[in-house]
């Protein structure tokens, strides 16, 4: 059956696949650069509370049928008029820079502020009562994160990413070869780059901030991407034993063709729970699920279209026979 050749030959479309991926990578790099150059952001991604530090207060107003309309300006005005209790460890914070968001038809109010002490936070919530009316205390969520913790989180994320890259590279070099490891990491970088690129653009265009869950998502995408690539590589290696007479290109085509169904099924079954999270899950996990869905789709793409085709080109091209004797 293998002699008739696979119906789908990935190498026929490799230039198209490479252009698509290069285009997406360039677009992502552009997004990251623009975000970095943007004076309002000053970083490749718009960092959220988890990274910058500060206090985020989420309040739920209790209103009967519909909540009265409140303009963010009204709240900003109320904030300016507040005087918070001073504390020796915390300088009296400047509330002018507060970011105010009204959600769920004015039902939920989200405030992003500089770091406040618990007493100051309470004073602020009490002080806003006049504008907001009665609040549902059970719906209040207050998060305060010191700036040092954000830096610590960022460093920890980068360190664990680098360590897991190294670990994976060592494992693949050991089980396969250094070329496979290089290609797996290349794909991984490709997947992570495109996912972060998307969020850079989202940050630029709609002000979306990345939180620590985004870092978790990136790490997962990295693991998943390698998993996908390894499955295809495993098949290529098997084909190199079974079809030693054929060119590398043909072996790769064959391996990709037989794993294509599996890749499609797996991506689909992984996306199903994530889509469920996007559509039914709480708001807390919405962007997390988006990041994972995008990353896993891109990872699936790169494991089919990028890693195998690059392997075919790098490991000798079409005319060179396999070095291992049949």
């Amino acid at each position: 059956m293998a002699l008739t050749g696979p119906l789908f030959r990935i190498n026929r479309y490799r230039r198209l696949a490479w252009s698509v991926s290069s285009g997406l990578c360039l677009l992502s790099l552009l997004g990251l650069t623009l975000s970095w150059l943007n004076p309002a952001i000053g970083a490749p991604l718009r960092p959220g509370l988890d990274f910058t530090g500060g206090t985020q207060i989420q309040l739920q107003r209790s209103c009967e049928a519909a909540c009265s309309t409140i303009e963010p300006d009204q709240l900003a005005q109320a904030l300016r008029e507040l005087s918070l209790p001073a504390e020796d460890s915390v300088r009296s914070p400047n509330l002018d820079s507060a970011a105010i968001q009204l959600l769920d038809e004015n039902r939920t109010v989200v405030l992003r502020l500089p770091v406040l002490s618990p007493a100051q936070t309470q004073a602020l919530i009490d002080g806003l009562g006049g504008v907001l009316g009665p609040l549902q205390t059970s719906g209040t969520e207050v998060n305060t994160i010191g700036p040092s913790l954000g830096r610590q989180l960022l460093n920890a994320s980068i360190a664990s990413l680098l360590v897991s890259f190294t670990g994976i590279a060592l494992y693949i070099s050991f089980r396969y070869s250094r070329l496979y490891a290089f290609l797996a990491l290349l794909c991984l970088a490709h997947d992570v780059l495109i996912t972060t690129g998307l969020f850079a653009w989202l940050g630029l265009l709609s002000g979306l901030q990345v939180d620590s869950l985004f870092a978790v998502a990136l790490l997962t995408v990295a693991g998943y991407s390698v998993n996908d690539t390894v499955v295809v590589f495993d098949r290529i290696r098997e084909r190199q034993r079974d079809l030693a007479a054929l060119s590398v290109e043909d072996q790769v085509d064959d391996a990709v063709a037989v794993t294509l169904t599996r890749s499609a099924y797996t991506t689909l079954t992984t996306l199903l729970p994530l889509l469920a999270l996007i559509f039914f899950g709480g708001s807390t996990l919405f962007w997390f699920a988006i990041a994972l869905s995008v990353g896993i789709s891109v990872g699936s793409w790169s494991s089919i279209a990028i890693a195998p085709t690059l392997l075919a080109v790098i490991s000798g091209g079409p005319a060179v026979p396999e070095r291992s004797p049949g």
Partner: protein
Amino acid sequence: MARPQGWFALILALAIAAAAVLASFPLQLGLDLRGGSQLTLQVMPAGAITRVEREQLEAVQLVLDRRVNGLGVAESTLQTVGDDQLLLQLPGEQDPTRAAKVLGSTALLEFRAQRPGTEQEMQGLLPLKRQAEAVLARLEGRGRQDPAPASPPGQEPPPAPAFPSEELGAALTSLGVSVPEGASEAEQLTVLLDEVNRRVVALYEPAALTGKDLVTAGRQQRTNGPGWDVTLGFNQQGGEAFARLTQTIAGSGRLLGIVLDGRSISEASVGQEFAAAGIAGGAASITGNFSAEEARDLEVQLRGGSLPLPVRIIEVRTVGPTLGAENVRRSLIAALSGLAMVAVFMVVVFRLPGVVAVIALALYALFNLAIYALIPVTLTLPGIAGFILSVGMAVDANVLIFERVKEELRRGNTLIRSIDTGFSLAFSSILDGHLTTLISCAALFGLGTGLVKGFAVTLAIGVLLSLFTALTVTRSLLRLLMTYPSLRRPTYFVPAGQLPA
């Protein structure tokens, strides 16, 4: 065909055990799921200490633990995080202001001299204190107790730890305190002890010296005779103040009180020989026939009381209970509906093995939850995300196997042979994929912060279990089914059109 049945029995037993575990150990939900407050405290290096050591962190934890218990929040936990941080969790607590205030303030450790002319009153109170402490320690069954005083040699040994009820009642009456009807002995003793301590502290002069000037506290075994001494080391200013303080009471019979947060933790006498210059040199030792454990406790209290390292609150997270409940409900619905869709997909695409995979995956979910309850893993939102993702990997393992089985069938192999070949061929890619994910998990767990750790733990458990279910549960269920001839039809695996003629 005894082997698949044997495996099947094992799987069944595991499933029953898992269900029993789930029934008897409740799942622990994180604060983001059930509401509450969480504070992260950074222990800051100060003075001569440039790096926070393990024992300093523990000393701070011990002091703060006692203060947190004083807050009266049920199930509050205080644990160390990394080298220099503490994590305080207060389930159900919506207002962390009080906790923050209590934690933020440095414990007040004071050295106070007894006021002149109060010797007699003190002599009345101290035996009560000793007795109450000893009995209370015995009642609570704890090994630790407050250290005995520095009693001069020759004094009677302390009485056996018992407190007859009429004596206790008389003591309470004489102190002018009343206890509610039906209070247990321990409660009465606590009331008594509080009152005695309050009175003892009232007999002291204002603090001449505070823990600020205490540089070190240690303990050492006595060179002559059994027991331990607790040593103190002051900075220069503290040493001078301590010398003046001890000079005033040396040989007078008045005591030196060590007061922590308004509670007298130790009363020491100062010998006549120090009347000239006091205990000078900035170092002193409390000689009190301490047991090793008592000495350690006092040492930690002294060191912690002086809180050589200030604490800063670097993170406060508060989640309202309805918000938490909402998150649980939504994530649960999402997880279940996602799994239901996956189940439908598997049955439609893979037919009979798809059904087997769905059973295997249901068991997989059960095993996962049982392990969360057993370890126990505190479930947080990222943890649930890790679980959902590991389900994806478990499904992938089944997909890989069944696709291989289909391929073998299409080549014209027999059913049983195709199943065996399918499993063994899929194994290496499943192993590689799972191991690489495990490597990532290890990196995330080792280097990540709390949130990331929760994710890594559930993902790692899921990946390990997935290896087990895909290779054992799915396989033995399938082989068990294949013992029934009526099920041994290739068309239950692949559409007839794809089979070779």
